[in-house]
């Protein structure tokens, strides 16, 4: 087994294991903090896939941004000190059936399909300039639109969260 394969299995284990804790932990704060390890695991997988720019972006947006927001959300919607932070579970049996069928279908499709794959291994050049060029040429309109979306989101979030 090559070193990169071992690293893949380590990151996969971290990602899946911490994702399980996110979903099944009774304590919301544990969920939030183990989500951090999921994000880090996914960032590691991006590095393995030679997507260096996205790996760092993942760190910045998910770990440094969204996760901090989530933890603030958890702490602001519960009386934190001395109160058990937990959340109940419901409808386990129907959910199990739906999810089992869903996962089975996904895995069946994934393993049966012959995916089109490039021959040889990809080049180890940084992706930053390629992504940058794509963003200001072919994808200029979506790029601008996503900027507007973010602006609208900031204004909307500030408007809704303020005290009236």
């Amino acid at each position: 087994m090559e070193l990169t394969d071992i690293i893949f299995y380590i990151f996969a284990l971290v990602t899946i294991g911490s994702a399980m804790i996110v979903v099944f932990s009774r304590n919301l704060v544990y969920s939030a903090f183990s989500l951090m390890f999921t994000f880090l695991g996914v960032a590691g997988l991006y590095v393995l896939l030679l997507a260096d720019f996205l790996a760092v972006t993942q760190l910045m947006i998910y770990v440094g941004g969204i996760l901090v927001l989530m933890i603030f959300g958890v702490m602001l919607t519960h009386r934190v000190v001395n109160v058990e932070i937990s959340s109940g579970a419901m409808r386990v049996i129907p959910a199990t059936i739906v999810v089992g069928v869903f996962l089975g279908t996904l895995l069946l499709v994934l393993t049966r399909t012959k995916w089109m794959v490039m021959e040889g291994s990809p080049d180890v050049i940084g992706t930053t300039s390629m992504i940058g060029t794509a963003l200001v040429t072919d994808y200029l309109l979506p790029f601008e639109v996503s900027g507007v979306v973010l602006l609208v989101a900031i204004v909307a979030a500030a408007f809704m969260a303020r005290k009236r």
Partner: protein
Amino acid sequence: MEQFIHDLIGNDLLATIVWCVLPLVFILGYAIVAILAEMKSASWFQDRLGPMRTGPWGIFQPFADVLKLLMKEDIVPARADKILFNLAPVIVFVGAYAAFAVLPFASEYVGADLNLGLFYLIAVSSFGVLGIIMGGWASNNKYSLLGAMRSAAQIVSYEVPSATALLIVAMMVGSLNLQDIITAQSGGFWNWFILGGPKSDVVLASGAVIHADIGNFVFLPLLLATFVIYYLSALAETNRTPFDIPEGESELVGGYHTEYSGMKFGMFFMAEYANMFLVSAVAAVVFFGGWQSPWGITLGEALDIPVLTLLEGVFWTAAKGFFFVFVMMWLRWTLPRLRVDQLMYMCWKVLIPASFALALVVGFIVVIR
């Protein structure tokens, strides 16, 4: 340098580990010096002598302090969340240490010469926030939680102006690689970005050329303002005075590490000192030429001794970093602490609009030149 360590040790895995641990050795040595400097400068500013008993002029005081921290009882509060309480100092320190991976100490000595160095630095510096919130929550103490929430709000807010300020220089260099940013400033202190950038053409390692007209003196006032924005945000991100409200002892006892003792407190402390050096070294790299000497030539290159060049590089990085760390200690005894609302006003209504305006102006000039 990396090759040299590999040759010296022979075993690849062992050599890689040694390579990764080298900055830690540097941080430990630096922390010892910085603790003493903090105590001595504080006492001199207050017209005191400071520690005088341990060793001549008290120079062994930091060793005594570290020994005390190591030997203290490690107390975990009864109602604290044990797992998160123990994990928090580790996460805070990892966040600080991970950034050292890309920090260039000399031309041949950088842990990982990433093309995305600057972006990576900005991204991992936000990592410590999670450890701070974790510690504050797990302590099960209202002061800890309040301190952690304040700290998180402060660090997340001040990341925006500091990142924008760094990106202004990245825009002028056209690269996020920290070595490229340093190379662009080679030739002497008049080429540093604090004084407007290179005054003659520079060829980067990738073959790209930075033209001299980018170093026009038009940029001097703009980059001076950029540096001020960066340094103020860096002070806030490291929770130093005048932005130390997360641990303001007159209101919050000790902030997020109120309940910590022994070596876990020591790790928070080390992380804070490591972060101080990190932001100072980034200021040195981006605005003050990094490992370049102020007059552009090094003795090692003149005499053709590579080891001397390396040591000179480390010396200049450390000297510039220490200088800005010293300025932080200086400010601590000069400026009073801000209020929370003043802190947020400063960030959102002064620094962020100013940094955006600067980015716009500098970007415009870079494009039309």
